[in-house]
């Protein structure tokens, strides 16, 4: 068959599909199927902003049909509210509800939206506290949070480089295996958090699907990128440096999600970033710095390159904290956590290949296995300090 004849055969099923869709929607088939039962309505409160005397909700309609908000209750009392752009939220649409309400600092509040058909949607403000605004003061606060829990710990971890350089080769492999252990722990943790966050995403946006796309999309991207470079036949040294940067990037993307979660929790008053928590995050993330320098321990990387890798790994925490504190949504959270998980997953594979090649195929020496296990246990131990 000639090339010119190809496309009609591609279009034919599509045309038939369109005709069928038209028949279903216009041909009265729907009225038979719907049986006159009202559709299930679904509204999700994506974000609650608290300013003095006001509660402002961002809501999303994740259901099959438009939903009209008729009344709003706060703490079991009907309350005045204004809604923009409209009382009726279209499918996949967003709206903002402003409620002038004398909320009380440090106490929980219950908000209930009542739709025109009487369906109610609950949202709990766990601890009422003023939501940070996008001003210099709060940007600085979030920057400091990112600095404390991301940038500085990673930078400190990088300082293990001189120590690693003085180690025997098998102990360097142990350090690399330990890095893999750290990363495996992070992947599991990130996936769990991503899927948990996905539960909060409005139904139609399919949070779980978003996580799958983010994880595999990132993994595939990095596979293609790192694979393309390797085919050019690099020196071992360059390859190890590349791996260090890949690890830094993976950790950085993970820290973006982590910063997002911390920023959001901080903004919503769900956590108090006490000294204990900050110190915990520092310990937890310092080990990430170790992971970056482990592959290049035998080399003499320039200080500038090291700093860059550190920034790549720690810096996104700051960006994440900004986003989380000022513009958090569960969808964004699930997406970022998924991307982080995908990136780390890819890095683990690369690490395994590197150690495998350097050890001439004898990857699973007792020492390497111990390294992976130690990495997992170290992350678990430091994770105890940041339980939130």
């Amino acid at each position: 068959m000639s090339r010119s004849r190809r496309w009609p055969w591609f279009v034919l099923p599509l045309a038939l599909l369109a005709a069928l869709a038209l028949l279903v929607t216009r041909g009265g088939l729907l009225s038979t199927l719907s049986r006159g039962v009202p559709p299930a309505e679904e509204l999700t409160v994506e974000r609650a902003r608290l300013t003095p005397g006001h509660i402002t909700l961002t809501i999303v309609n994740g259901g099959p049909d438009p939903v009209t908000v008729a009344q709003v209750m706060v703490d079991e009392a009907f309350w005045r509210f204004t809604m923009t752009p409209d009382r009726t939220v279209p499918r996949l649409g967003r709206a903002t509800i402003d409620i002038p309400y004398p909320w009380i600092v440090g106490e929980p509040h219950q908000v209930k939206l009542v739709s025109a058909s009487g369906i109610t949607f609950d949202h709990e403000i766990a601890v009422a506290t003023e939501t940070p605004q996008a001003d210099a003061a709060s940007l600085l606060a979030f920057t400091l949070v990112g600095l404390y829990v991301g940038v500085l710990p990673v930078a400190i971890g990088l300082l293990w480089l001189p120590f690693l350089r003085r180690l025997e080769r098998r102990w360097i492999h142990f350090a690399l295996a330990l890095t893999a252990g750290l990363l495996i722990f992070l992947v599991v943790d990130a996936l769990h958090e991503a899927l948990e966050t996905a539960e909060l995403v409005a139904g139609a946006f399919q949070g779980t699907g978003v996580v799958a796309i983010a994880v595999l999309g990132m993994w595939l991207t990095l596979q293609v990128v790192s694979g393309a470079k390797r085919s050019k036949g690099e020196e071992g040294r360059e390859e190890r440096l590349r791996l260090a940067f890949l690890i830094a990037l993976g950790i950085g993307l993970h820290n973006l999600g982590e910063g997002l979660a911390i920023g959001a929790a901080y903004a919503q008053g769900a956590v108090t970033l006490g000294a204990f928590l900050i110190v915990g995050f520092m310990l937890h993330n310092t080990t990430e710095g170790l992971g970056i320098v482990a592959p290049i321990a035998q080399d003499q990387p320039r200080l500038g390159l090291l700093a860059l890798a550190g920034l790549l790994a720690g810096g996104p925490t700051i960006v994440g904290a900004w986003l989380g504190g000022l513009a958090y949504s569960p969808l964004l959270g699930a997406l970022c956590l998924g991307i982080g998980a995908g990136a780390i997953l890819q890095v683990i594979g690369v690490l395994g290949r590197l150690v495998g090649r350097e050890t001439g195929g004898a990857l699973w020496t007792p020492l390497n296995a111990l390294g992976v296990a130690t990495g997992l246990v170290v992350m678990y131990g430091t994770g105890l300090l940041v339980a939130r």
Partner: protein
Amino acid sequence: MSKGKVSRREALRRGLWGAAGLASVGSVARAATLGIHTDPHTVMTGGLPQGAGIDPTAFLTAFDYGETSRRPDGQRVREYRLTATDRKIEVMPGLYYDAWTFNGQVPGPTLRATEGDLVRVHFTNAGLHEHSIHFHGFHAANMDGVFEQVPPGSSYVYEFEARPFGLQLYHCHTMPIKRHIAKGLYGAFIIDPKTPRPAAHEMVMVMNGFDVNYDVENEVYAVNTVPFAYQARPIVLRRGALNRIYLANLLEFDLINSIHIHGNFFHVYRTGTSLVPAEFTDTISMGQGERHILEFTYDRPGTFMFHAHQSEFAELGWMGLFEVRDEGVTA
């Protein structure tokens, strides 16, 4: 962040607003130093709904005396017509509820007879479900509305002598009863004593509520169906004149309801079955199906609140206002 916001929060922190101010940070506190607001909740809910099925103000004083005739022996006969229909009513602005109604309204019409009258109620079920009418009072077993269920499209005639005098009820008695009552099939039934009570400004108040999301809890509370109705349109009373409220509690799901009137006390005639008041109080609690007649007179002009003293019910709709005016003042 604007300077104004900071200074206001600063003022709060220093306690300049006092306890009252702290309880109402925001628009209310911003409005005025003394915070005079006559109807905060009607502002909050957006006024009165257009499609409630009743006019709450008209319902207060609407009495259905039936079609009257005389039997050969001289007994007065009163014939009423009640039809059960399914109707979507707008309970609050924009909030719709699939109600079951008597004559298209919730509560059903207030039936009124005098003790000793022969009451004949022609009931037609035009709804989609089985219904019945159960009257409180003395009557034969087959007039009780429990065993004689009326299928959709059918009719039944209830006949009995109006006894005893007092404030009685009628409501559907089909299983599941809770749902049949909650959906709106109820009304007040006044039996006047043969010697009438003293002349007064009489009002019917049926305390009710709506479980709009069917979770077996009320989301909406009211007297006479429409939340905050008498806050949007206060009930006008004359200073010095006797007022009489026929108050019935037809709230489902919540075990108890109450009324409290401000700036005054009332005499309570429990179930309306005595002409001697049982109590002089300003707050009375009532279980499901309880009803009383309250009498009171305001000696001062002004606006006075009345509401359930379950504050939760009050803020979910069960509150209203009396506007006491001097004789001759109409506006």
